[in-house]
Every structure is written in structure tokens, then in C-alpha cells.
């Protein structure tokens, strides 16, 4: 292997023709160049910060901790308008579902049954229909004889605020408006349901 001798002067290829920059306005140019350099680096920095923000955002929705339940308003399939604010002082069970969602069917009966039991006890069940069509949704509701208020989540506005990743997801909201539990997937055991309800009883 041919060796470079240590301390050898750098084999300069050619005398740098630009060694003495032609006089006029190198100072002004330097300022402009520095400005553009700054802009360029700033843009890249902003981009990376946004990427970081996005990473945090996706992480957060995976490990959502309880907090204040985001407000929402919707119109039921029967034409009634309900908003979360109206229900303060009551325990709210908010269920996101869809007619095309198979696991939702596993919990539909339990939800309706619990509603029937609890509606006198200031517990309100709400169903928000996610990315769905009215005819299919109504057919689904009829199939399970669901009577609690259900309506389409238009433009998935509420779904986005609650950060759901899919259906079914159920949020248990206490009378002060805090989320006490988030259940991903169908609720199939009455025991579990009672556990969740216990925390939101007024």
C-alpha cells in the first residue's frame, strides 16, 4: 500500500485562481450569502421539528391518558341535536361504531341492555357512527334494537378529536367531563362494564 508521509504538505492541484476575489462588493455579497444560508438551514430545521411533533402526536394517540373529554355536537338519525356540554352532570358512555365493523356487533347487545338498565340513573349512552352510510347504519340499529341516541359523525370530526384509531372504541366520561376509561375493542363482559360505569356514576 502506498503510504502518505505524515506531515506532507497537501498536494495542491492548481494554484487557486480565485485566491484574490475580484474586489467589488465581497462584503455585501457575504451578507446576502449568509442570509440565504440561514434561511436554508431554518427551513430544514422547521421540517425536522414538524417531524418530531408528528412523532409525538402519533405516540400520544397510542397512549392516550385520561383528560378532559373533547366537546362535540351531532345530529341523531331521528333529527335530534345533542352536544356533550348539555350532558354535564351525567355519566356519558360514548361509543364509536360502524355498520361494516364486525367486532362492533359483539358488543351491540350488551350496550343496549346496559342502556335500558341505566337510563334512569343519569347515565347516557351515545353512539357515533364512523365513516358510514345512513341506510346501512339504520339497518344495523334496527337489527340490534338499539334505542339510545345514535348519529353519524360527519367528516369524522369527533373521531379526530377523540383520536380514535378504529372501531369500536368506547369512552367513559364522568359527570365533570373527564375521560375515565378508554376501551379499544368490544366490551363483552358485564362485569367489566360495571367496573367502568362505577367510575362515572354521578
Amino acid at each position, binding site marked *: 500500500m*502506498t503510504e*502518505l508521509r505524515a506531515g506532507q504538505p497537501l*498536494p495542491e492541484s492548481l494554484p487557486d*485562481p*480565485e485566491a484574490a476575489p475580484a474586489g467589488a462588493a465581497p462584503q455585501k455579497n457575504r451578507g446576502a450569502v449568509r442570509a440565504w444560508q440561514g434561511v436554508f438551514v431554518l427551513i430544514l430545521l422547521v421540517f425536522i421539528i414538524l*417531524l418530531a411533533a408528528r*412523532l409525538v402526536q402519533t405516540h400520544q394517540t397510542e397512549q392516550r391518558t385520561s383528560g378532559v373529554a373533547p366537546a362535540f355536537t351531532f345530529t341523531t338519525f331521528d333529527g335530534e341535536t345533542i352536544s356533550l356540554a348539555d350532558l354535564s352532570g351525567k355519566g356519558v358512555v360514548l361509543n364509536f361504531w360502524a355498520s361494516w365493523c364486525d367486532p362492533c356487533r359483539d358488543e351491540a347487545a350488551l350496550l343496549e341492555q346496559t342502556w335500558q338498565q341505566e337510563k334512569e340513573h343519569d347515565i347516557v349512552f351515545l353512539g357515533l357512527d364512523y365513516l358510514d352510510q345512513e341506510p346501512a347504519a339504520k339497518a344495523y340499529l334496527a337489527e340490534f334494537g338499539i334505542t339510545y341516541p345514535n348519529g353519524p359523525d360527519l367528516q369524522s370530526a369527533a373521531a379526530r378529536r377523540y383520536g380514535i384509531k378504529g372501531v369500536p372504541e368506547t369512552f367513559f366520561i364522568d359527570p365533570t367531563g373527564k375521560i375515565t376509561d378508554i376501551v379499544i375493542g368490544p366490551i363483552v363482559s358485564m362485569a367489566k362494564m360495571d367496573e367502568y360505569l362505577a367510575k362515572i356514576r354521578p
Partner: protein
Amino acid sequence: MIFDIGYLILIAGMVLSAFGIIAGFWGGRTRNTKLVQSSFRAVYAVAALVVAATLLLWYGLLFDHFELNYVWNHSERALPVFYKFSSLWGGQAGSLLFWCFLLSGYSAIVAFANRKRHQVIMPYVNGVMLATSLFFLVLLVFAANPFKRVGFVPPDGQGLNPLLQNYWMVIHPVMLYLGYVGMAVPFAFAVGALMSKKLDNEWVRTVRRWTLVPWMFLSAGIIMGSQWAYMELGWGGYWAWDAVENASFLPWLTGTAFLHSIIIQEQRGILKVWNVVLIWLTYFLVILGTFTTRSGVLESVHSFARSDVGPYFLGFLVIVVFGFMWLLFDRLPLLRSEQPIDSYTSREAAFLANNWLFTAIAFATLWGTFFPMFSEIITGDRISVAAPFFNKVNGPLFLLLLLLMGIGPLLGWRHTSLASFRKQFTFPVIAGLVVALIVFVVARSLYPIIGLGICAFAAATIVQEYVRGVMARRTTNHENVFVAMGQLWNRNGRRYGGYLVHLGIVMISVAVIGNEFYQQTTNATLAPGETVKIAGYELEFAGLESNRQSNLTEYGARVIVYDRNGNAIDTVVPKRNIYDRTPDQPTSEVGLRISPIEDVYVVLNGWENGGATATFTIFINPLTAWLWAGGLVLVLGTIIAAWPHSTRRKTENVPSVVYATGD
């Protein structure tokens, strides 16, 4: 046990790379031969270690060692050996190891090939390559350990994702990774040149060849990915502007711009700063692309499962941005331009326009890919940016680029005289107009008229160049046509190979236009014996059959294709594969009849009553076969252009650099 050793090997590699980086950068700066030699040895050692680790993981996969988490997650006993082999890159940790495997391989080859040349730059090159390896080794050691254990020995694994169980998914990632990873090499040379202030044309010539090779693999990888999408996904197309597809396309765009603009640097000594920025941008986009496919910041059908590697990538990106920007801004005075441009009608100007367009397309693609993310962070709205956006924004730009591709070679360096204009442009312009007229008459649709006209123009340019070259050789050397062409490739491979690459691009463009604007489609539910008509063909469903493989059942529907005269010209068998492990994730294989004019493309959607009726979607895709042919021509052209010629070595060692000892 043995796999714990694998983990230790990775740690050793990590430590050695760190050492090698220091040796390389410090040795390069102080010109300390011992340190420089150490950097070479570190490169070889890290390569050996990573190869060993990769072989270990392959061993685990091929011999069903389900106690390894990775093997359990991505393999099963019944998986064919072919796919056990390819499952190495089927999941997050394994594919990161594969990345590192190829990177350290490239590093070793580059180091070995240049052990006696570029002596001032090579220590830095080694350093940068090792720095990239270090990053991936850190990922492997801390965030995605391929040798993680399950804790007990499961009897069988989960199996490989069904979408990955076909031939294309074996070869496409390999090609793509070879391209992706290889882009670190020219970047390393650029950093080396900047660090050592050795910014003459010597490093440019080396960098060109070391960019062409990964560029070829990247191009091949992208086309193979399109082929997979076309033949497996069954929606009649081959490119969806998905985030991961764009991630592979972005470095291709900047890499292609770079390949063109270093030609101009070699010839005219201008655009030095821009070229260095371009090659850095390519590297940045490679790391960014690797990040986006693995971190979950963008939704994609291709994404790996969510994991913890995101923050590491961001940290590395910050280093890449700030480190390089500091270096560039510091060395900026050394990158002054030497020769001016003389005229707008010169090849230099055409190259400038080429770079302008490529950069604009790259920006638009990057912007469109990340816009949903920006929108969601800033406004909270979810929007989708898919083919309509990219077609509208990039479409016209690509057309303009095609036009430029035809014009460029016809212009002279420095300026083109009016007489030369007339002589060069007459035939191609006529060819373009004729084809545009034909398209206008046959199928009246504005975009194809312009697009195919431009394609004809560009193709005519290339043909004209070849004819002139062959004729010139015949006149002076009296060779016959084939020998003349061979000599053109042999002696002027850069130029005539490059023309072939352009021809490949023209063919691909023709296919894209044909598929985008003239596709016809229909759906049909047929019982055996029933037929459906489309575009002059008649397709008859002849029955459903099933075929048992080791881990799946193949259901195929035999469809007989008749032409307009009633002759049976082909039988295609669209399939649906139901996998034992994941019966709700079937894959499909398209029944395809390919011809240069159009493809008959049949998808089996489903069936009732064991085949009493079957539902099909049928596409007629005109000119789509030219995509694959164009890809082959492109690769051939690149090989011709990059082929090293021993006789040329002498002339390339133009003494612009004086070495202490000659070669």
C-alpha cells in the same frame, strides 16, 4: 447462546465503527498514515462483523429457530425456503440489519477499490461510511434488536406477511436497497473532498461512477416495485404515489439531476456548490425515506409496524443537516465557478434547465408526500394527497423534462449556430409532429397528443444521434453497422449508453401515457361458459380450480381470451391465494396477457358456490408492456455508460492532481 453472540457482534461492530470514524477523520486531517490505515481496517472489520451477524440471522430463519422474536414474527415451518431466506428483510429489525449489511459491503468494496487512489480523500470517505454504519448499528443495538429472544421456544412462527410471499418481493427490496444504500458512497466522497479541500475534477470522475451504479439499482428497484404492484395488487396500475413509493423516488430524482449536472461541472467547472448540495440532498432523502417508512409519521400501505426507531432517525437527520451545512458553508469560497455560460442555446443551459425541473419535481413530490402530515399538525384536518395531485402537478413538468431530454443532446456546448439548429432539429421535430398528428386522428385527447409527440421527438433525437455516430465511424473506419455501434458503446460508452438510458425513459413514458389515458375496464360475474366482451376481446370463464401449496391454497380461474375473430389466443389464470395462517388476508395474482400493443389484465375478485359463479375485474392496458422493456433498456444503457475501460484509465489520470507516488 449463539444468538446472544450475534448481539455481541453488533455491539462490537458499533464500537469498531466509532473507532474507525475517529481514525478516518483525524488521520485524514493530520495525514497520519497509521490512522488512515486503521480506518481502512476498521471498514473491513465492521463489514466482516455485520456479515457474520447477518449470516447468523439467516441461520436462525432457515433453521426455524423460533426462540428468536424476529424469526417467530416473520416465518413459519411451512414457509418455503425461498421465503425464509427473504424474510430477512421482511420485518423492521431484519431489514435494518440488511441495510447495514449492504452498507458495510459497499464500504469495504469502495475502500478496497480505492486503497491506492484518492489518498487524501479516502480516510474521510471511510469515516463517513462508517458513520452511517454506526447509526444503523446503534439502531440495531438499542432500538430494533434482531436477536431478541422470546424467552421460550414456540413450536411454530406467525408466518410471513402474505403480500411478501412472491418472487417480486424477494428481488425488489434487494435492488432498491442496493440503490438506496449505495447513495451513501458519492456523499462520502463529497464530504471527503470538502474536508480535504481537494475539489478538482478527479473526485468528480470517481463520484460519477460510484453514483451510476446505485442509480442503476435504484431505477431497477423502482421499476420492479411497479411490476409487483401491477401483477399483484390488481387495480390495473403500477404506481400510486404512496408515501413509501415517493420515498424511493425522491433520491432517484435528485440522483438523476446530480448525474447530469456533474457532467457540466466536469466540462465547464461550474455548479460546484450545487452539485455538492445535490449529492447531500440525495443522502438526506435516503435517510429521510428510511425514516418515513419505519416511524409511522406517514400512513402508507407499505409501512413497517410502528417501532421506536423514529427519534434516533431524527437525531441523525439533525446531525446530517447541521454537520454538512457547516462543512459546506465553511468551504464555500473554494467552490467558485470557473467558466461562464455563453448562451441560452447551449447544452450547459439545457443542463441548467434539467436541474431546475428535476428539483421542482422533487420538491413537489416531497411537499405532496408530507402535506397530509403538515395539515394534520397545523389544522387538525385529515386530507389525502394521492394520484390526482401528483398527476396534475408533476405531469406537465415531466412532459417538459421529456422535451428537454430530446433537445439537450442536439445543442452544442457553449452555443448552437442557426445552421446547426436547422440541421439537428429538422428530423426529430417532423417525427414528433407526425406522431402527434397520428394520435390526434386516432384517439383525440390532448395530453397523449402532446406527450406521444414529445416522446417521438426525443426518440427521433436518439436515433439520429446513433445514425450519425455509426455513419461517422463507417466513413472513417469502414466498419459495418454492428461493429460501428459496438465501437460507439465501447469507446464512447458514456454518451451512447446515456442515449440508451434516455430511450428507456421514452419507452417508459409511452407506457405511462398509454396506461393513464387509454385504459378500459369492466366488471363481470360469470358462470362457467359465460363470456364478457371488452375492447374487441371476448373472455370466457372456463372454471375454478384449486391447488394446495405448503402454506396456502391457490384458487385459480381459467379464463380463455378470444380476439375479435373468435380465435382463442390465450388462457389466463387470475388467482386468489388463501393463506393458512391469515385466511382474512388473501393475496391475488393477476391473469395477464402481455403484448406490445396492450395487456389483457384479469383480476379474480371472488366466487360463489365453489365456482358456480366468479366475479372478475378486467382491464385493457394499452402500451403498458413498454414499461418493463424500457426498464431493461435503461439498465442496459447504464451498464454501457458505467463500464470501466482499462484503456481509458490512463487518459483519466489526467494530472490534475499530483500524487506523492504514482499509480
